[in-house]
């Protein structure tokens, strides 16, 4: 399986964050093509392309755009989810930092399609360099007539604002994001009504991920066939996979949907030297972990469900045989407990309980009952909380116990972490 740089193709082009370099690299050509089409035709093209959301859930993008009521006399909004915070996920940040105009171009085309006159990019606060380069790109785009009124004489008007968040993983959940953008605590909203009819300021709103929208110019200029020539029938197109952890050459690898971990590891030089693959996440910490058994499972939405996990954000965190699965589960449980927004009890209370039980186990003072209690607690959290954060919170624990139960047991039969003495090798194995 080859590397297929599409979204990443300009990333090694000097100064491509500037308008001049971006235009030289065929930037804003897709926008000109888009303005020759009717908005509904663009929605149809995106539907036909089969593009599915890259923010984690894989919802068909064209269908989402089609839900926006047209001719309703209300303002429409496009909101870009650039809150990238799912542990392991690191694809939107480089895209915005290195090639910000590609996102701006996608935003203009998408806004034209759904007839939005205001668009916002909600960038997670910590990503200051991404927000900075986006703001610079937006200023250049206004000056060049790609934003503002009567863009390129199309009669279409669009204002675009870059909005920095303030540190809260839950604001990546699309309805929490909308509340946050309205100046509130970022807590998820009850659905229905859905953002398509009652989104930002209770108006029709499309919320899409950065990578989703950056894919749109390629679909417009390359066409549906070219997009579909990559990937698989139900999960078409190129996709950026992010490899991190115990891998020789961590980084961003853009390949067709359906590529396997074995193929990706080949490109990335394999698991770090002298070590064997133990566990990995296909799509960030909220997706159930898999093992070496799943090296040949196709990495796409269907393939990962078949393997018992989810594609999520295609963030592959690679863990080798020095990794303690209890410590891993604990570290992630602490993350979810910290990031729980507190709105509902199963998640707010449950994640705190998970942390204290895992701590006990990791410190060697747990017992058999702790494993049962963990699984029972996870069972009571999964599917019973207000939003998907809580479902994600139990993934590392349930999948960890599923594949590595012996290791959880060893923590109490041996009175401590069996990996305690490999901790010191962690750094030695680094750079």
């Amino acid at each position, binding site marked *: 399986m080859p590397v297929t740089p599409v979204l990443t*193709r300009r990333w090694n082009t000097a100064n491509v964050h500037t308008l001049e370099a971006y235009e030289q690299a065929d930037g804003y050509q897709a926008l000109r093509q888009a303005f020759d089409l009717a908005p509904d035709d663009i929605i149809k093209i995106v539907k036909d392309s089969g593009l599915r959301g890259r923010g984690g859930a894989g919802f068909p993008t064209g269908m989402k755009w089609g839900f926006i009521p047209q001719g309703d006399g209300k303002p429409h909004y496009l909101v870009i989810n650039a809150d990238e915070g799912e542990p392991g996920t690191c694809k939107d940040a480089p895209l915005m*930092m290195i090639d910000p105009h590609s996102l701006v171009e996608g935003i203009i085309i998408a806004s034209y399609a759904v007839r939005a006159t205001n668009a916002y990019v909600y960038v997670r606060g910590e990503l200051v360099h991404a927000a900075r380069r986006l703001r610079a790109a937006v200023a250049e785009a206004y000056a060049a007539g790609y934003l503002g009124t009567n863009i390129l004489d199309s009669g279409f008007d669009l204002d675009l604002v870059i909005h920095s968040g303030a*540190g809260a993983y839950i604001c990546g959940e699309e309805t929490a994001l909308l509340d946050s953008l309205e100046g509130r605590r*970022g807590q998820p909203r009850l659905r229905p009504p859905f953002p398509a009819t009652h989104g930002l300021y209770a108006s029709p709103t499309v919320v899409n991920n950065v990578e989703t929208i950056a894919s749109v110019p390629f679909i417009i200029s390359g066409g549906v066939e070219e997009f579909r020539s990559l990937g698989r029938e139900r999960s078409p197109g190129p996709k950026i996979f992010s490899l991190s952890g115990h891998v020789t050459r961590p980084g961003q690898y853009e390949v067709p949907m359906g590529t396997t971990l074995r193929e990706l590891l080949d490109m990335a030089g394999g698991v770090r030297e002298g070590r064997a693959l133990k566990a990995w996440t296909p799509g960030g910490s909220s997706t159930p972990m898999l093992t070496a058994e799943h090296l040949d499972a196709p990495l796409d939405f269907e393939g990962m469900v078949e393997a018992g996990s989810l594609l999520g954000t295609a963030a592959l965190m690679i863990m080798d045989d020095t990794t303690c699965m209890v410590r891993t589960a604990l*570290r992630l449980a602490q993350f979810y407990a910290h990031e729980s927004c507190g709105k509902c009890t199963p998640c707010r209370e449950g994640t705190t309980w998970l942390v204290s039980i895992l701590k006990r186990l990791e410190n060697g003072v747990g017992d058999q009952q702790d494993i049962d209690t963990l699984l029972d607690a996870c069972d009571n959290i999964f599917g019973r909380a207000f939003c998907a954060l809580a479902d994600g919170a139990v993934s590392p624990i349930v999948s960890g116990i599923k594949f590595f139960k012996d290791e959880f047991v060893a923590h109490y039969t041996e009175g401590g972490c069996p990996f305690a003495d490999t901790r010191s090798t962690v750094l030695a194995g680094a750079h």
Partner: protein
Amino acid sequence: MTFPDETVTEARSIIERYPAGRSRSALLPMLHLVQSVEGCVTPEGVKFCAEQLGLTTAEVGAVATFYTMYKRRPVGDWLVSVCTNLSCTLLGGQEIFDDLSRHLGVGHDEATADGTITFEHAECLAACDYAPVMTVNYEFYDHVDPASARGLVDALGNGERPAPTRGAPLCTFAEISRELAGLPPARADAVAGPAAGVPSLAGLLIAERDSRQASVADEPPAPATTSASSDGGS
């Protein structure tokens, strides 16, 4: 304190970014703005935002306490954050945090005695492919280890401003808070600061190497010196 007229003018410019009647959307940027003036979000800062936006202080306070980037205690010039989430910790992030904590003599969310450095651990910073990472005022220092992390904070203590691996030349916490509010960067060369290291280009470099047909099986790909290093716009 009362905020200077300039802050009032800037607050108005922030409000104008959002549609008429939707001024509350300006609250997050405005909290970054008051934090830039006072080093943290104080009761006065909350009151200022409430007055400008026609909200109650309770409404603003509820928002300010929800988000981790709004600080309750004054941050000095440097906010030093070490990522301890999974991909970083697999490569030593927790050890780096612990070591730096001992070195600085402070724990999470605490400031050094002279008040210049506020120290914290951070959750995943969307830079896992550069792990272990840390940031100073949110600019990235990639592939750190205990020694380089100590070196970095020592340099800050000596009044130096080591260049980040990815990001703009360092500015103070007050200045970066203004950028978070959407105001222009403190330095004209901020935008040109480097953004693409080898991990961001990992896949692309393989494709470029293959298309040059110069594939030497075991040679790890390297960035084309001209283009990757010129990303910084130098």
